[in-house]
């Protein structure tokens, strides 16, 4: 399988502080990678490096064989809603349409019929079509998260990158986000950052544990029916004894 994102010996320093050290990571086509780690462990920094919002202090990042800046139009980014102004006057549809901006470069006086059609289709996929005329201020945390996923999908990305999609969401809505990602995974690669270990091990194929340095694990199905009863859903568990070289899959 083709490699889509590759990080070779990447380090990032913020002033004197080392945020990331010697990171090696290969993401394969159609892979679902989870990145977990403590707060301040460099998870968001890793995403921003892949998106080309930050430049590594040393090492090399390639996305589809290009630099992150060249390739970022092929990436779909889902930020945390908590960082937004929750009183911003904007409707759901207007927000999702933002994903169509910048595709033709320069001025864009109006959204084309094709833009509108793509937006309608991704809103159907993410189950927010009936909310399209609602203001963002009137939505729940889970609904906002799905709007941001829809906006990222509207740019027709080849890889979806999500930053803490279950932060500030109650478990039931987290479950909806999980099943949505599971459906999307048929079509695109996904990189998901979360501090929520339970969430991440349910949906991903491979987990990267990040706390300044990075260690990858494969996930294996849990046979223990007690665990399933405990969570009420099928689980995968991270087997920390399986040490795979980066990029390798079980």
């Amino acid at each position, binding site marked *: 399988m083709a490699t889509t994102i590759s990080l070779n010996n990447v380090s990032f320093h913020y002033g004197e502080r080392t945020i990331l050290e010697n990171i090696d990571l290969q993401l394969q086509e159609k892979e679902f990678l989870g990145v977990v780690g403590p707060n301040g462990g460099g998870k968001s920094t890793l995403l921003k490096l892949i*998106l*080309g*919002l930050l430049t590594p202090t040393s090492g090399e990042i390639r996305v589809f064989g290009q630099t992150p800046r060249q390739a*970022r*139009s092929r*990436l779909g*980014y889902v*930020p945390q809603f908590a960082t*937004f*102004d929750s*009183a*911003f*006057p*904007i*409707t759901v549809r*207007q*927000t999702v*349409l*933002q*994903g169509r*901006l*910048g595709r033709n*470069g320069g*001025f*864009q*006086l109006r*959204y084309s019929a094709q833009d509108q059609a793509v937006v309608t289709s991704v809103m159907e996929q993410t189950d927010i079509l009936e909310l399209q005329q*609602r*203001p963002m*201020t009137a939505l729940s945390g889970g609904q906002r998260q799905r709007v941001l996923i829809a*906006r990222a999908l509207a*740019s027709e990305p080849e890889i979806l990158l999500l930053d803490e999609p279950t932060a500030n969401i109650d478990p039931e809505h987290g479950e909806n986000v999980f099943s949505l990602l599971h459906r999307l995974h048929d079509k695109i690669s996904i990189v998901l950052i979360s501090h929520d270990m339970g969430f991440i091990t349910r949906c991903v194929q491979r987990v990267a544990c990040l706390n300044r340095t990075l260690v990858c694990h494969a996930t294996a199905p849990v046979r223990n029916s007690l665990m399933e009863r405990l969570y009420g859903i099928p689980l995968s568990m991270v087997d920390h004894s399986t040490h795979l070289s980066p990029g390798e899959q079980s």
Partner: protein
Amino acid sequence: MTFFEAVFQLDFLLYAFVGALLASVACGIVGSYVVVRRIGYMAGGIAHAVLGGMGLAYFLGQPPMSGALLSALAAALLISWVNHCASQQEDTIISALWAVGMATGILFIARTPGYNVDLMSYLFGNILMIAPQDLLFIALLDTAILALTLLLYRQLLLVCFDPEFAVIRGLRVSVLQTLLLCLIALTVVILIQIVGLILVIALLTLPAATARLFVTSLSGMMILATLIGSIATVAGLALSFHFDLPAGALTALLCGSLYLLSMLIRRP
């Protein structure tokens, strides 16, 4: 004689009336950006720095409004540069610009020979002094603001809502942010003639903040803010006519009262 009869009989009142309506357009559009982007402090910095340019123009015997326009744009570019290169010190540098601009202006005006009647009208505005050529100048600035906003509405909306996503979508965010500050600079120059530079911030934030309580889109906010701005400026002018009080201060107070009232109405 009522205010509206007087508007059609007294030229200076008609000019003031038209000036108030024209200024409301810039105030509604650009004020909405200032409120959603939360850059009232930057707008305040630009407004006060303008006195330096006006003072210099006055001292050199040039039209003060040309000095205002140049210094407002220079302040906008400087703030945008600081924002880009040294964002940690942004707050301090805006404060410095604010105070140094005013001090420079006051010194130039003090050294200008003759009777300095204009200082107070720069600070607090004198809408009754507006001449037909001022109206033309305001209309030109309005046209520039309106045209740029229509052309770049979607891009500016995204830059205000989520600048990081705008970068990923390939928009030239720093150029758009600089442009936004330049639009604020043009609006400041317009509003100085209506309410004076100290009260500019009232018209640049309160009508838009009031409008935001009732709308679900940025364009709706701009239209409603324009409407609220024109009600406040015209009512301020009318009250000033009836009670012989300064129009600028009345307008600012009306904006504040409308905002407070709307907060009470919209609060469940």
